């Protein structure tokens, strides 16, 4: 097996162990005296009303996530090109420019229709 994979496995194991101990420390060391008021969800002294998981929030957040996927895939596509672009030369640059231009037009459109506006 390649040594770097072994190192990655060891690193992941060590990190997981340390983080797990840190997360579980209170459960192991802390005292336990639960009561209703303590276990209640924080609501600034009031009783929590209604269902939280069906709580509605602005549609803007969904839009941001969708835009993120579009542009993040663009960025991911640019990495392999960035590594070999000296070999591809001007041809590769023109191809990438065409690709980015299409997305830049998309960004300009999204900007123009106000999808990036928050109030």
């Amino acid at each position, binding site marked *: 097996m390649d040594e*770097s994979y072994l190192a990655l496995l060891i*690193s992941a194991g060590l990190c997981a162990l340390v983080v797990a101990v*840190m997360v579980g420390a*209170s459960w192991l060391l*802390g005292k336990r005296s639960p009561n209703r008021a303590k276990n209640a*969800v924080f609501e600034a002294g009031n009783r929590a009303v209604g269902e939280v*998981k069906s709580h509605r929030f602005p549609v803007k957040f969904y839009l941001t996530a969708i835009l993120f996927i579009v542009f993040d895939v663009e960025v991911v596509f640019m*990495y392999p090109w960035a590594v070999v672009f000296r070999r591809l030369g001007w041809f590769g640059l023109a191809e990438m420019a065409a690709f*980015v231009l299409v997305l830049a037009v998309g960004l300009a459109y999204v900007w123009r229709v106000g999808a990036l506006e928050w*109030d």
Partner: protein
Amino acid sequence: MDFLIVFAKCLVALLIVLQVGVLLLWVERKGSALIQDRVGANRANLLGGVLPFNLGIVNTLMADPLKLFTKEDIVPEGADRFLHWLAPFLALFPLFLTYAVIPFGDVLEIGDRTINLQAVEAGPGILFVLALVSLGVYGVVLGGWASNSRYALLGGIRGSAQMISYEIAMGLALVAVVLTFGTLDLQQIVREQGKLMWGVVPAWGVFYQPLALLVFFIAGMAESKRAPFDLPEAESELIAGFFTEYSGSKQSVFMMADFVEVAIVAALVTTLFFGGWQVPWLHRDGFHLPGGLSIPLPSLLVTILQVLSFLVKLAIFCWLQILVRWTLPRLRYDQLMNLGWKRLLPIALVNVAITAVLALALQGWTVAS
């Protein structure tokens, strides 16, 4: 024997990030006190207060974690127990692992062995870093979702929107860096920065990619969710944001994740833009100053100097982030989104275009051959 060396390297990488994370907690408290003209954490009643000198650092480094670890662990009513446990783990684990690919030195020569001072010698190091840093968003959004609290949910959603928005600018800034150096391997990138421009100036990334540095540093600070980008945990509106319903050690893990993120941004800025472990004009066999003067040094001393250089640069950029955090007020949410989408993203795109054209037009401009 090989296994032991690999194990030791992984342990050293983990210890560096762990120590930096814990030390930053103290630096943050003392640093903020310095900036706000107060004394800061200085109470430590160790051994009943018989010691005459100030033990503030002991207080923050030992008493604080001990106190947090022995607090009661509360899972609120109606919360998803499994996800409530998983969220802090997912917030910190990928950040710790990121440090494994960051080179903290050149090579260590012991006898006939040459040890590369990088825990995981990953070829696609930058991709590995980006993948793991973006995993951190799961900790935030799951912490908010699992808590069954409105404040936490809002904090989690705000946090995830903020982190993914700035990830694009961050990724694009790194594309320009990859164009300059022609490789994804972090150790290779640092080695390239040991070259000289016009035989005098070290070929550090900052001289080739100042715009990328600016975008990357701002986006990195936004990823770490600290002021002025701390909207996910804005205390005045959201109590503590996504970790409102966390107590004891789980809460301290979220806190630690913030500091580790600071350390990672500092380490990446050092590695990509400020020569990593490079000391200007220092080569494997000693200094070769531009004037023609040479000072030969033993290999071990060179390695020690380089590791120290990495740690000093790391400390400088950690401190810079703490300075920013205690100087600037919090942004409004629309300002935050405008900065990410309308300023940094176009700047990063233009920077990639300029870099690509320059690199092809002036063949000698970039570092990679």
